């Protein structure tokens, strides 16, 4: 009631600071389905442009796949629109159970529990299974949702340097007296696209009697020979105690996430995880779509194979053009520009060339590590990638950075 001038001024000043720092997030309005070709209104009120999307998590091109849409239509017919209840009161459908079983089979785990999102899965899992006698040892670059989950958990917390196994080992030694030790990592790290060294981590966990949790949100469905994610790639299927992942990226992209792993852990989440107990689960229509996604993925590896080919083609094209990339195997391909303002200008110029890709800068990535994060999709055809490559070339030329080293770009634009 007392929204005083003082309060309003304070919030306005904070917004002013965000704008002045050049980190204000402007949203672009999409008028079409999510796909390689999208129709975008940007800035607000501008004429709608047809652009190629190079920055979605639609890795498998399933976000607007006709079979998935058809399954969603059928879900609406057979199970209605909403459940208006949490799971344990009157919000559990047969198809929720079916999806939990399907995920368990796909990932090769004991059991699975659905959450409204992977953000909620990560926010709820730690507090449900750990106490102050235990320790969480997390990679320093894990996702924000894991950080929030850890903040809500009374277990002790420590970190290890990103993907640094010597440091992880040190920390495991240091905390050997704790009851439960849980090592926590992303499978694929979203900003760099690099992959966790799960084989070595599992070896260390076995040596030091620790458990391991992997957030495979940026890999389920396409990393590994049959798309089972980073455990498959690293040959440790069945050895990861807890996998969290999302249906909001490659697996149709609507919403929903899960915790999959040891039976008792999943069971404990069903009894104790707060976002599960106090919020609706995934809507039936979304469940129907995800079930169809798993059917598509289980029938063949065509989509993830095409994604792999597209990614190799894209990486080579950018490298040949003289861009500096973060090395890796995932479809996350960061084009390094280092300077925050350059990344924003670059993104705007790309948009004018019909290419939609966003610049990332501090605090999302470390200071002086600004970049355009491109994400490849099985929904991209050769012509999309060729068009995007020539736009990158043109804009790269305009800013005079092609073939330059990091030092040369920094000398030219600053950090």
């Amino acid at each position, binding site marked *: 009631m007392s929204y005083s001038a003082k309060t309003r001024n304070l919030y306005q000043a904070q917004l002013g600071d965000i704008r002045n720092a050049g980190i204000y997030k402007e949203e672009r309005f999409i008028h079409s389905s999510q796909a390689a070709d999208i129709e975008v209104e940007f800035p607000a009120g501008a004429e709608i442009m047809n652009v190629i999307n190079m920055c979605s998590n639609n890795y498998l091109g399933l976000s607007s796949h006709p079979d998935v849409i058809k399954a969603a239509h059928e879900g609406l017919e057979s199970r209605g629109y909403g459940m208006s209840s949490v799971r344990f009161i009157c919000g559990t459908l047969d198809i929720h159970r079916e999806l939990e079983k399907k995920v368990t089979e796909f990932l090769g785990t004991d059991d699975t529990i659905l959450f*409204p999102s992977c953000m909620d899965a990560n926010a709820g899992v730690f507090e449900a299974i750990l106490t102050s006698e235990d320790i969480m040892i997390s990679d320093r670059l894990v996702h924000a949702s894991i950080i929030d989950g850890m903040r809500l958990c009374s277990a002790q917390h420590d970190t290890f340097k990103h993907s640094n196994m010597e440091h992880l080992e040190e920390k495991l030694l240091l905390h050997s007296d704790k009851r439960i030790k849980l090592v926590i990592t992303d499978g694929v790290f979203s900003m760099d696209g690099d992959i966790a060294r799960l084989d070595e981590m599992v070896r260390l966990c076995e040596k030091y009697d620790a458990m391991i949790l992997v957030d495979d949100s940026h890999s389920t469905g396409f990393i590994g020979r049959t798309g089972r994610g980073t455990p498959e790639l690293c040959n440790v299927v069945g050895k990861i105690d807890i996998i969290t992942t999302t249906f909001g990226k490659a697996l149709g992209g609507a919403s929903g996430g899960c915790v999959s792993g040891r039976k008792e852990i999943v069971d*404990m989440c069903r009894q104790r995880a707060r976002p599960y107990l106090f919020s609706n689960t995934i809507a039936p229509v979304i469940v129907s779509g995800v079930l169809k996604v798993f059917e598509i993925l289980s029938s063949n590896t065509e989509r993830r194979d095409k994604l792999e080919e597209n990614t190799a083609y894209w990486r080579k094209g950018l490298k040949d053009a003289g861009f500096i990339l973060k090395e890796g195997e995932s479809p996350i391909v960061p084009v390094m520009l280092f300077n925050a303002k350059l990344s924003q200008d670059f993104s705007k110029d790309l948009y004018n060339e019909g290419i939609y890709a966003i610049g990332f800068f501090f605090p999302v990535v470390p200071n002086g590590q600004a970049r355009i994060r491109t994400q490849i999709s099985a929904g991209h055809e050769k012509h999309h990638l060729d068009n995007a490559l020539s736009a990158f070339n043109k804009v790269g030329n305009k800013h005079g950075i092609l073939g330059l080293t990091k030092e040369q770009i920094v000398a030219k634009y600053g950090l």
Partner: protein
Amino acid sequence: MYTPYQYHLKNQLNEIIEAGLYKNERVIVSPQGAEIELETGQKVLNFCANNYLGLSGNPQLIAAAKAALDDHGYGMSSVRFICGTTDLHKKLESKIAEFFGTEDTILYAACFDANGGVFEPLLTSEDAIISDALNHASIIDGVRLCKAQRYRYENADMEDLEAQLQLAQEQRFRLIVTDGVFSMDGNVAPLDKIVTLAEKYNAMVMVDECHSAGVVGRTGRGVTELYNIEGKVEIITGTLGKAFGGAIGGFTTGRKEIIELLRQRSRPYLFSNSIPPLVAAAGIKMVEMMTGTNELQDKLHRNSAYFIEKMTALGFDIKPTRSAICAVMLYDAKLAQDFAAKLLTEGIYVTGFFYPVVPKGQARIRVQLSAAHEIEHLEKAVNAFKKIGKELKVIK
């Protein structure tokens, strides 16, 4: 490593089972509605959904969702600020603001996330949050994630609120936080008095309208309408997952700068997908329906009044309520469970609630009324309550 931990977890799970607190899920095989079908083949009347307006299976919402599937696809595979914002999201945000008479709205994947992400961006350790003791778990988690000083007042106790406000005078900003309707009792927060105290002690007010939006107030605008203080509350959070269609989704609506700052800083908004386009489209249709007529609210209000009147006449102990939640007090946890089980054999689906969801010795059956209920559904439920109530000697 897992083996010793597995042993530990099994023990804990056994303790939960032995304490009678293990949550078993009943599997439903039909759309949500007044009548639903369970996996066992039994058809029952549902009196425990948050489907207050009976919209969960509404054909108009389903048609709107289908149309959006056809022109906006299934998923966005992105957070809002990268490439996950559609014209439907913007339209729904402005419709919700219009509906509540607020300045702007921000959508979330759930109201759990709206509440989880609202405090941290707005308040710092210099500020104070003064929270009702019975606020929802998601508010508690949001407060836990925020550095502000915490004050708590007894449920709807205005003397205690005033005392806490006095204690909080040394902080820079004060935010009073309350549920509109408290989900376990069904009582409405005394928002008129809260607003008066907020003025006196220079505090802002946030109200969670999850169980009141669509339900309370003549046209379903919630507790601000009930008390005639529309537009006077700084922050309203609410859900699309209960009365408003029941799928998923939540929102924060209120002052322009607050919403703008949340869009820049609120973690569940920045790091998680928004609602899919089909849910946004159904939400737009829902607000349009609400704006056109009060038919559903009127029917819900009639149903609630009827049910409460009949149950009170039978001699049941009902918590004072001004919402569509009717708490039938049984006090004993085992009795509440037995009562609910027997009602199910009579074709009435309700849930018994007991500690730790409600205080010890306060076990109850929470009945939730809906505009989807017809008079014969209500009669059948009342008769079943009468029969089991006599059988278990709860009433004479």
